[in-house]
């Protein structure tokens, strides 16, 4: 973030910013709106059927609603800053979803690992917006962050429970082996031109490479230190 980065406090002020700034913010808001809805539809809703007890089923219902609520909030902000409503939902021919959403969810341990590691990736993305120069987006990030943290905690708590028994511990390890390699790509390409624009305008703080390295380090703490499992090697994950 440079000293010259603007502080944009309102939608009216947003409309007065450069084309580069407006385009950059719209890209981020659109991405969050689409991915929050994709996550709810592809993972959270189907996971209700996979959950082993009413407690887990209802909690997953709640998580799905919160993810959907995040989509609604990003969609509302997107419409306020001039993104057509149709561009803020997944659709054929629209913005390509993250490769993470190609993952075929088949069992409860996989979902718990997705929450543990997938929502950690989401937390890092949202953390990077907590000081965003566009204040409505900064405030939205601050609003959604507690729920994102809870979703990751949900994954951690259930993974810890599953790891208490040898059979389900092996299932969690298998899920980590399948899920983790997909996730570092979530942070975008190294040397990204978009990311350079985001940082120059104070919209984001860190490079994709910095975030990816931080993500892998934090994932390692969760998987190896807290669960006592093995994280696939970074080379395999890259």
């Amino acid at each position, binding site marked *: 973030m440079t000293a010259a980065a603007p502080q944009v*406090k*309102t*939608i*009216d002020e947003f409309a007065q910013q450069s084309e580069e700034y407006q385009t950059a913010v719209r890209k981020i808001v659109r991405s969050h709106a689409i991915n929050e809805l994709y996550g709810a539809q592809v993972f959270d809703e189907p996971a209700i*059927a996979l959950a*082993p*007890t*009413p*407690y*887990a*089923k*209802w*909690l*997953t*219902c*709640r*998580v799905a*609603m*919160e993810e*959907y*609520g995040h989509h*609604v909030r990003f969609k*509302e*902000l997107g*419409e*306020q800053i001039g993104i057509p409503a149709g561009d803020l939902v997944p659709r054929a021919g629209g913005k390509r979803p993250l490769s993470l959403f190609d993952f075929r969810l088949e069992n409860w341990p996989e979902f718990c690992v997705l929450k543990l590691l997938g929502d950690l990736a989401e937390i890092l993305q949202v953390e990077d917006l907590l000081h965003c120069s566009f*204040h*409505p987006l900064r405030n939205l990030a601050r609003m959604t962050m507690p729920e994102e943290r*809870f979703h990751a905690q*949900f994954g951690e*708590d259930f993974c810890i429970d599953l790891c208490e028994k040898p059979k389900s511990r092996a299932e969690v390890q298998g899920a980590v082996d399948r899920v983790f390699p997909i996730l570092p790509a979530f942070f975008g390409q190294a040397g990204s031109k978009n990311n350079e624009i985001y940082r120059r305008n104070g919209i984001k703080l860190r490079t994709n490479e910095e975030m990816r390295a931080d993500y892998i380090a934090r994932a390692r703490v969760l998987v190896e230190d807290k669960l006592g499992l093995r994280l696939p090697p970074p080379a395999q994950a890259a």
Partner: protein
Amino acid sequence: MTKPIAATRKARAARIGAVAATVPDGVTALARAIAHRSWFAALGDPLTDAERAEVATYLAALGLDDCRIAGVATWDEARAIASAPDWDPRWWDAEERERRALLAATAAALPEHPLMSGLTWVAEAASDVVHGAAAVAAARAGIADAALIRVAAGAATLACYQAGLARAAGRGDAHPFAVKLRVFEGGRWMLGIVGGVCFVF
């Protein structure tokens, strides 16, 4: 900073207005009423005869009238029952069968978009309200378990969604999803069946 908030409210009101214009009346009425119900207000109180009768009606409608009914006194008991590994899945499976049957019935009678918009509206309205109500009820009982509060909110939101679907399909007040919602609206939480007993908090 007031402009974005005002704009958000305006956008939300416009969105709700657009949804309300297309969804079945019963679903609209349900969504509008959610904010005015007694969510989780009677947790732990002894069950009344009328409440037992409602729960019995719900169980009979799902073919589970062999179950006894029992009240639950505390949040800790509720947590244990909801997470019992030996829970009886018949009620969940029966609800799922009924949900799929209602979706098939409504698909034949209603355009998909207004139906989904209406049910999403119900779930959104419930999600906002019931989580706060569950948190207040838990706090009154000295419970600060964020996950358990969300579990309660998830159960109530699901009950709202199911009742909305039943209304969209033209089902009346005797439908098991309508009965279940009335139990929740009366301040209760139906926890399900364990060991042949249907537990109600």
